[in-house]
């Protein structure tokens, strides 16, 4: 697998009126094509800035980000880079442009100047892939948060991106909406082969990722498989992440002397681990 995104020693500074704020410094990261990467970090860890840098919405102060070998600072390819790396934001309300679902989804392809019948096909396909085709004539305003967010994702998919970066797409949703979005993302990765970079502070959303990166104060503090990362609960808590109760329970049982690992999250697996641990001791 080759890299779709290469972040090379970048620095990013916000320039406020009088003070400079360095968010990222000498930061490097590669994203493999077709992979599902989760970036965990609490508010202010620099992860949202990173998201906006990946498609050239923000420009690096120093260093370079390559998307398929093209620099995000290359103004000539600005549009093409945004097409290849789609960005989905936290608040679904503020990323929908049109008041009819299908017309909103068409916005991207329309900007790209595709032919009307091509746009039609792209829109229908995108809506089907997020399971919102039957709502194509509805108005976003009447949909639930999870549905609106799926429309926002469809709006990106309609541009046929190679990679989608999602910046806390579930933060404003209820549990049902969250589940909808996470399963949609997984499906897009598995079935459509789209590279996914999911930025979140909910640890359980990282369970099925290929790779988990933990960020804190603009730095990568851990970068490994979910299993590996989850066994290091202490670190996750230190950087202020949401640790699900299952993991918390395993962690504390372990601290209390039970012979158990903390690398699972699901209810079933956790129960199995505890059951095994208790039984092993009994035998």
């Amino acid at each position: 697998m080759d890299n779709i995104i290469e972040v090379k020693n970048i620095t990013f500074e916000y320039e406020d009126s009088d003070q400079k704020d360095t968010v990222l410094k000498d930061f490097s990261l590669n994203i493999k094509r077709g992979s599902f990467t989760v970036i965990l970090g609490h508010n202010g860890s620099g992860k949202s800035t990173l998201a906006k840098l990946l498609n050239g919405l923000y420009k690096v102060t120093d260093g370079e980000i390559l998307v398929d070998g093209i620099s995000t600072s290359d103004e000539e390819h600005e549009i093409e880079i945004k097409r290849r790396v789609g960005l989905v934001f936290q608040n679904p309300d503020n990323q929908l442009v049109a008041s009819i679902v299908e017309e909103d989804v068409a916005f991207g392809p329309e900007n790209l100047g595709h032919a009307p019948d091509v746009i039609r096909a792209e829109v229908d396909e995108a809506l089907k892939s997020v399971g919102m085709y039957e709502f194509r004539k509805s108005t976003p305003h009447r949909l639930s948060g999870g549905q609106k967010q799926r429309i926002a994702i469809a709006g990106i998919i309609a541009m046929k991106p190679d990679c989608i970066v999602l910046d806390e797409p579930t933060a404003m949703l209820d549990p049902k909406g969250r589940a909808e979005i996470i399963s949609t993302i997984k499906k897009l990765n598995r079935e459509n082969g789209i590279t996914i970079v999911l930025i979140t502070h909910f640890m359980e959303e990282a369970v099925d990722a290929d790779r988990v990166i933990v960020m804190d104060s603009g730095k990568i503090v851990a970068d490994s498989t979910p299993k590996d990362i989850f066994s290091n609960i202490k670190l996750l808590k230190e950087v202020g992440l949401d640790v699900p109760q299952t993991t918390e329970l395993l962690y504390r049982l372990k601290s209390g002397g039970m012979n158990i690992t903390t690398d699972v999250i699901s209810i079933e697996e956790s129960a199995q681990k505890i059951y095994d641990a208790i039984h092993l001791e009994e035998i």
Partner: protein
Amino acid sequence: MSILEVKNLTHTYDGNTPFMNDAVKDVSFSVKKGEIIGIIGHTGSGKSTLVQHLNGLLKATSGEVLLDGKNIWDDPKKIRLVRSRVGLVFQYPEYQLFEDTVYKDIAFGPKNMGLSDDEIAHRISEICELVGIKAEYLEKSPFDLSGGEKRRVAIAGVMAMQPEIIVFDEPVAGLDPRGRADVIKMIYDYSNKYGATVLIISHNMEDMALIADKLIVMNKGELALFDTTENVFKQHEFLKDIGLNVPMVTQVMLALKEKGLSVPDDIFTVDRAVDYLLTLSKGGNHNA
């Protein structure tokens, strides 16, 4: 004696309004002074509509809300007095901040109650101490604060009115773990200090297990359950049927039970689960 009583409250929205709303059907319950009540249910189950009746922001289609035994609409002119006795903190309350300093913003509610400047100053310093807003923050602009801080200031703005009952609509939505813990603590401390009654709408069963004495379960506009947190969570089958979950730790315990381990089904917090499981494992392990 119950401080708040809701009797056969029904609220129907005109079916033709273009905005989706959740109706409430024949809901009755009563709340005692100092209780912390959780309200759980799906989006659209009527929770938000229900709580807006408690301080008279919405008027019931039928049924009534009694505060200290008196219908809050007995004298419609005094509805603002009701609103100072029943505080309501909306979802994402930081979006209602508007003054140029934190102090002035917190003072908005008390000022509307017609309190003297001295009394307002006293209340603000009291509430800020309680919820951990530092004195130097008071002269800052609320818009310069972080998300979590804004939320605390907005909540303090309602608490400074010292309502006897305070209602929260998803007070921790969108916050990170640190922010969440801060807000939960602040609600708990307020209730403790003033003996206030608290109602909290939340999706987070884990938080509910920690803080709520009783739970109201709303389903399709109806009150499906109203009982102690323990008794509600014991009905995990029913909750599952209407699309709600018990806390994750309880689900783990239930899964263990299914595997044949003898564990009780009334464990709703990690603390209790850890205690129980460690005792169980050490009890079985003779070397320990």
